[in-house]
């Protein structure tokens, strides 16, 4: 069982990414509004205001999606589908996908085969 976290930089792709989750057989996920560190530092801390130009190109806001996945084989499938939507995740500014082991969970929705 894994906790999958995906930081989606291009928020406009959220709907398609959610469809990818469903297609991969992942029945539920939680979506958080999130903010990049560069945006926070350069717009909220006056000391770093002059770095706005340097940070340009980085998406200021993003979505963080997380889901506990029982059947780990679904993760590979999801990665493929996400990359079809967002492009190669190795490209900077696309998104970040990672998983961490989960040793206990309760309240999860039933996953289809």
């Amino acid at each position: 069982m894994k906790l999958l976290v995906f930081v989606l930089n291009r928020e406009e792709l959220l709907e398609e990414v959610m469809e990818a989750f469903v297609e991969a057989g992942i029945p539920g996920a939680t979506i958080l509004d999130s903010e990049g560190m560069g945006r926070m530092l350069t717009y909220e801390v006056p000391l770093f205001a002059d770095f706005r130009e340097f940070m340009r190109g980085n998406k200021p806001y993003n979505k963080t999606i997380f889901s506990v996945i029982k059947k780990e084989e679904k993760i590979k499938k999801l990665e493929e589908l996400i990359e079809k939507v967002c492009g190669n995740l190795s490209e900077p500014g696309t998104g970040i996908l990672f998983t961490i082991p989960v040793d206990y969970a309760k309240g999860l929705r039933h996953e289809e085969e």
Partner: protein
Amino acid sequence: MLKLSELLNPKYIKLDLNAKRKKEVIGEMVELLCQSGKIKNAPKIEKEIIQREKEGTTGIGGGIAIPHIRSKEISQTVMALGRKKEGLEFDAIDEKPVNLIFLLLGPKGEESQHLKILCKLSRILHNTQFKEILMRVTKEEEVVTIFREQEEKEG
């Protein structure tokens, strides 16, 4: 990463600034750094610093200001420290007078290094005890020593 204790030089530290206002203090500290030979056009640098301050104050509160720019007029990163025991007006975010001013000047294109130095300096200066020591020192050389000791302690 460049060490703050290596960046600081007693020649560019003034423990008793003459200036009473923000603009004057910038001028006084740029003049201090002119000795380094790494600044090409001091009046232009002063203007760029003042322009930068208009984007957002570098008076971070707690009596500290870290004015800084990256400019084509600077060949290598340099830093000066000025102290005004009675404090001076610097439009700080906490609206309180500023006592310690660190002027950091770096060349264009070295944004990452500049950012790292700023973050490290800001973090160390949030330490009240450290600031108190800086307010007490009587010799410029001591400033370099206490920064070196702090960096050694942090590893």
